[in-house]
């Protein structure tokens, strides 16, 4: 259908603009005018709440919003008249009037949309006094996220992303008028409601109203404790994003610099979660093969995304038996470090501290799950430990942002650091481990191993193009040497819900499904650096696949350290010991 264009005038110049586009789109795409916005989030939050993107249109008494108003034939738009400037400034001043003035100590002091907008619009003094008399209590109930309603400007982005993208609806506006707040059910707090801790709300929040629960002080403390052996593991998606925090170009592979920086922070060992990603592929690949061969429950659904796990436990308890029993790479790493590595090195497991750097906020919830104390149970009889001495497999989780903050705090000039390697043995990984960070990556990694194990033939081609790409949902039929394997991949829980509803009804045509809670997979996680670049996910994905292509070993089962752990410690994949240490259980949360 040939796109009809309309003639419009913007600031006195003529343009032909596609019918159906908004004033905001027309001005940006054709007139090189970036009309300021605040609450607008394309495709997700288009409510016209903030009143900042107003423009002057000939013939209208009021100032229409550029984000909502569609262009019409012959429309004359002025984006910079006196009353437009006045209206924008006053609307921002009205927000600032009730906004806390603690920019110095606020998490978002360097990247706050409200602060940038105020300076852009030349707001130099706020002549309006506070009208909100009492300060609202901080919501501290979640293990992953902290909500400060006093910094909320009610732009509704978080509510919309939680509803439209994640379909979790954990928050909505409560109350009315000037005492409206973003709230959970009966204001019980994020920790007590359906919130799956994915942090997508945090990524879109223009101010410091939503931040992660920081564990920086705890990590500094253990790093300073001489009799602790502090080990760090870094997730696949961190290395392709952490560079952004230090001004490096989007999509930089900063793996070597990341390892060097963490080492100079004082970590005794710098290992890599990619190692336990390979381990996960071994366990999960064989689980898939087992189910296919002995008619187990299919489709097998991946289990490395903790947000997705809580989502399933809360909304679809019925599909929990389809979900792989494998722990996530973060948790496998913790267990392996405090059992296999502790034994190998002769260390007292109670002295080992595992810190993981993750692109994700839900990992902070996952490490606290009651099932995640496997290492303690492993050692309990051996070392006759009392129940009160119980310890987690993973002690602390830092988001990519928190790790960067510690590196800055230590004064390390990240961008110019010479590259260093991960320590052995748990630093060794294959290309398959790295691509865990992108949506479709776990699937491709598993297929690379499953293909060779099932057919006993070497893989003709390493790259499974049709499972790659950032679309919300993908499906493909993979030919495993004649036998077709129908697979599907979803990122973003709104998309996942469609696949899972099919599974619940028993109508799912697939045998293997990968689900990532966050759009784009872990590279788009709630712990990643905040970026306004619309293509940031594409850059990070390209970097991940470049890292994979550059790895000498690209299949998990060919990782020598993996072969060694099975030889010396676990036996074979899905062995009784492997099952005991590397697998977990789930429980129905729908009643909570």
């Amino acid at each position, binding site marked *: 259908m040939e796109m009809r264009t309309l003639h419009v005038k913007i600031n006195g110049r003529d343009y032909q603009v596609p019918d159906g586009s908004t004033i905001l789109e027309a001005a940006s795409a054709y007139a090189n005018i970036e009309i300021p916005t605040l609450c607008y989030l394309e495709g997700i939050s288009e409510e016209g709440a903030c009143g900042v993107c107003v423009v002057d249109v000939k013939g209208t008494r009021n100032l229409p919003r550029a984000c909502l108003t569609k262009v019409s034939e012959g429309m004359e738009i002025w984006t910079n008249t006196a009353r437009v400037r006045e209206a924008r400034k006053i609307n921002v001043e009205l927000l600032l009037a009730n906004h806390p003035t603690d920019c110095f100590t606020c998490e978002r002091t360097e990247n706050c949309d409200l602060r940038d907008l105020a300076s852009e619009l030349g707001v130099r003094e706020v002549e309006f006094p506070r009208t909100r008399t009492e300060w609202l209590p901080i919501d501290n109930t979640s293990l992953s996220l902290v909500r400060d309603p006093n910094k909320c400007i009610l732009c509704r982005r978080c509510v919309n992303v939680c509803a439209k993208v994640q379909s979790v609806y954990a928050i909505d506006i409560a*109350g009315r008028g000037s005492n409206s707040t973003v*709230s959970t059910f009966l204001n019980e707090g994020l920790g007590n409601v359906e919130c799956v801790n994915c942090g997508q709300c945090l990524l879109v929040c223009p101010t410091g109203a939503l931040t992660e629960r920081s564990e920086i002080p705890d990590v500094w403390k253990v790093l300073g404790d001489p009799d602790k052996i502090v080990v760090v593991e870094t997730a696949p998606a961190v290395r392709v994003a952490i560079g952004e925090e230090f001004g490096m170009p989007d999509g930089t592979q900063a793996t070597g610099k990341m390892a060097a920086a963490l080492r100079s922070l004082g970590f005794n060992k710098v290992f890599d979660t990619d190692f336990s990603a390979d381990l996960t592929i071994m366990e999960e690949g064989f689980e898939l093969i087992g189910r296919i061969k002995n008619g187990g429950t299919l489709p097998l659904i991946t289990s490395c995304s903790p947000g997705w796990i809580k989502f399933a436990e809360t909304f679809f308890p019925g599909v929990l038996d389809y979900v792989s029993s494998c722990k996530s790479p973060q948790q496998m790493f913790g267990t392996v470090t405090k059992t296999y590595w502790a034994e190998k090195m002769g260390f007292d497991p109670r002295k080992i501290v595992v810190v993981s750097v993750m692109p994700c906020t839900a990992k902070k919830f996952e490490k606290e799950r009651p099932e995640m104390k496997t290492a303690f149970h492993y050692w309990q009889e051996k070392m006759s430990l009392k129940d009160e001495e119980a310890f987690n497999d993973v002690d602390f989780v830092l988001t990519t942002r928190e790790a960067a903050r510690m590196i800055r705090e230590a004064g390390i000039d990240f961008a110019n650091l010479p590259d260093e390697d991960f320590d052995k043995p748990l630093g060794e990984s294959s290309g398959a481990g790295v691509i865990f960070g992108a949506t479709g990556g776990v699937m491709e990694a598993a297929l690379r191993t499953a293909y060779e194990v099932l057919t006993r033939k070497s893989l003709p081609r390493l790259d499974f193009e049709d499972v790659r790409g950032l679309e919300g949902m993908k499906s493909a039929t993979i030919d495993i040497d004649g036998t077709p394997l129908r697979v599907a991949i979803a990122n973003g829980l709104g998309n996942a819900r469609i696949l899972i509803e099919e599974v619940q009804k028993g109508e799912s045509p697939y045998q293997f499904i990968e689900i990532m809670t966050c759009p784009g997979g872990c590279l788009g996680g709630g712990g990643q650096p905040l970026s306004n670049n619309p293509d940031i996910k594409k850059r990070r994905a390209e970097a991940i696949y470049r890292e994979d292509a550059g790895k000498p070993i690209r299949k998990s089962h060919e990782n020598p350290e993996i072969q060694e752990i099975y030889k010396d410690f676990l036996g074979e994949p899905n062995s009784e010991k492997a099952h005991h240490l590397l697998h977990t259980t789930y429980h129905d949360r729908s009643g909570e």
Partner: protein
Amino acid sequence: MEPDKKVQSPEKATALSVEDRAFLQEVVERDRVEHHGRVSYMDILFEVEHRYGNFLPGEVLREVARLVGTSVAQLNGFVTFYTMLSTKPRGRHVIRVCTSGPCHVTGAPAVMAELERLLGVGEGETTPDGAFTLEGSSCLGICGVSPALMIDDDAYGNLTPKDLPGILAAVRAGGAQ
């Protein structure tokens, strides 16, 4: 820092009885079938509020959200938007004194003050014996007989402070006006 322990909301303690669940199921189904498959929220909530003494306990709201197929956060947003719905316990009778323009200029403040004196509670509060909750209200649409108030569904007009004891007694005795 340790997260705040999970706040055990009072209503949670009183898990729903079988009758409660059956009652809620019946109300939601009735209001769904009659209205073209779409659910009439307000009818459900008013009927439920009526049964639970003029307020909507958390556990009941959670069950209604489940039956209606919406999220508890959305239902919470809905209930806290409308002043006539309450998530806080209220008295058996709700007194709504019109504090709008026409009533204000013809004596509403005096009526409110007298009620506060008679009931011993301020605006927005419930009497200790659970009989009355005293609330201000926007215009009740009976400005011709201002100052006016409503107790539950009954309207009383042309009020002077000295009419109030009689009205309260009548309502306490169960007789509407």
